[in-house]
């Protein structure tokens, strides 16, 4: 049978190519363009080379924001993943409780992010907020706007409240896909509750948990709206994460060049860390495939 050889099929790819070009490639190139130039307005640009990158990478401000952001991501992952798994394990598998739990769990995920920020900003206020006022009554003056530790507690608790549900839903989806026969076999084998978790539930949840960790890491590393509403990055720079810093630089100070350079560094960091996460977490699978 003769095959017809022509390159018309490339036109099929064209629409997708154009969409991606306009939504991702062209904006990214604009940023690259900005990052190597300087401007004082009037659409006049001067070549700046790698100056902005050098400036960003040697500024304490950037490293400070990066470490704060890493610390934040680590803390919320350490809380949200185990907590989410724990809640998922204790959710009912059948009956009226299932939709009830699922809807309750989905609630925080449906609230707009700036509303979440507003809610927590209000609730932690010591004069009118439920949480802040209650703490005041037992002798702790809670002040998210003044005390860096309090600001951190607020931001972390807020994120846990907002996003643990996502981990719960993913983990639950993993759990309900385990056939009953596994639990029955475990009972026959005399497995303890811990063994059931360790050898049945955890391995079966591994894939969805990998997704949960990746999603939560990337989201928390890009967090902007909620801390911006609650603390505005303060007090001082104590809750100024990378994206808050970036916006301050680009919009507040109109330093387009350094902001563009920082965007690119930021993007590369997320790409690198996601790749590291993914490689580490899938490597145990690969070992098994190899030993088959």
């Amino acid at each position: 049978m003769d095959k017809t050889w022509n390159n018309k099929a490339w036109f099929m790819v064209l629409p997708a190519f154009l969409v991606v070009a306009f939504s991702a490639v062209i904006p990214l190139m604009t940023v690259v363009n900005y990052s190597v130039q300087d401007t004082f307005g009037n659409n006049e640009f001067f070549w700046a080379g790698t100056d902005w990158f050098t400036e960003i990478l040697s500024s304490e401000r950037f490293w400070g924001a990066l470490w704060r952001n890493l610390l934040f991501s680590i803390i919320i992952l350490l809380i949200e993943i185990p907590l989410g798994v724990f809640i998922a394990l204790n959710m009912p598998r059948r009956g009226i409780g299932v939709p009830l739990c699922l809807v309750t769990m989905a609630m925080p995920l449906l609230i707009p992010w700036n509303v979440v920020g507003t809610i927590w900003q209000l609730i932690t206020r010591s004069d009118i907020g439920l949480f802040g006022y209650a703490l005041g009554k037992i002798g702790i003056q809670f002040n998210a706007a003044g005390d860096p530790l309090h600001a951190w507690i607020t931001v972390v608790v807020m994120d846990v409240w907002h996003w643990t549900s996502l981990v719960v839903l993913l983990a639950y989806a993993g759990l309900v896909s385990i056939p009953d026969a596994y639990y029955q076999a475990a009972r026959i084998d005399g497995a303890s509750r811990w063994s059931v978790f360790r050898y049945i539930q955890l391995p079966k949840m591994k894939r969805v948990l990998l997704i949960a960790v990746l999603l939560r890491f990337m989201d928390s590393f890009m967090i902007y709206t909620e801390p911006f509403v609650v603390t505005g990055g303060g007090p001082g720079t104590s809750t100024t994460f990378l994206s808050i810093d970036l916006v301050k630089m680009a919009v507040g100070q109109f330093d387009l060049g350094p902001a563009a350079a920082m965007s690119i560094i930021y993007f590369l960091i997320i790409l690198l860390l996601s790749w590291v996460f993914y490689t580490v977490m899938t490597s145990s699978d690969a070992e098994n495939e190899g030993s088959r």
Partner: protein
Amino acid sequence: MARITLEHIRHAYGPNPQSPYDYALREVNHEWNDGGAYALLGPSGCGKTTLLNIISGLVKPSEGRILFNGQDVTDFSTEERNIAQVFQFPVVYDTMTVYDNLAFPLRNRGIAYEQVDRRVNEILGMLDLTSRAQKKARGLTADLKQKISLGRGLVRSDVNAILFDEPLTVIDPQMKWVLRSQLKSLHRQSAVTMVYVTHDQTEALTFADKVVVMYQGEIVQIDSPAELFENPKHTFVGYFIGSPGMNVFPVTVDGSKARVGGMEIELGYAPAIGQAKKVELGIRPEFMQLSRTGMPLSIRKVEDIGRLKIVRADFAGQPVSIVVKEEAEIPSEPYVQFRDQGVHIYADSWRVGREA
């Protein structure tokens, strides 16, 4: 090792069962001997797995008691009952090696290292898995995984009973034969009570000393394979065991004679049909003989199935099958004779004997 007594066991999955049809298991009342090899045979959905899960303690019966060696274990957990069970589809602990999978039930019970090692190696050898002992279970094929499941069921030597729930479904045919005979020889060595669920009559008849035939949530007959063949207690047993199944047709009984469409069959005894709504005569194709004398019938077709031939015919307006030897001659004006010991009378599907 235990004698298992099932006392008036009934089970319904839904709450508040009203009619007998709400029960997945209707009234099971039997005693199974210590060290026996039983096969639970029946079509899908007849309650085999339910009964098995009740014995192992995964399901608690709605009514009735279950006793091991005379001790009531109805409220005991699976672990306390000390039962091993193998499921239809492979269940393996993915992250463990094959060796650790087999050792798992023993380690959970705190058995000493040397003993675990000896026993696990024994089972690995028996299932031909020794070369894979240190491989992770995850990447294995379905039939290897099922062998691991099987091994976990066999690894404990002190169990009261080992229950198999269609364990060879995913195994390919050749391997099935090997594993089945290994199970059988293991049973002879260890004398553990074994219960084997299947819907395959060959599997049941080759594995078990006693076959338990279930139909619509009831045990209809527990007997040796030969008894099931020669004296089916229920028309279902007649249909289900043997190939082709028993010929069953409605008759009217008058004293010691059965009449069907103008033919008269002498029974030699007067069956106790009582007030039965439905009276049937059952005879296996092997007990009908084509000849030149007897009762007339018309042959529709003859199927050659190798060493035997199956004759499909109409007898008194009823379709019947007759098994004849391959070399046997089919008469051009055929008549049929019934061998006495093969003729059974069923009243409302249950076999009836002589009038008392």
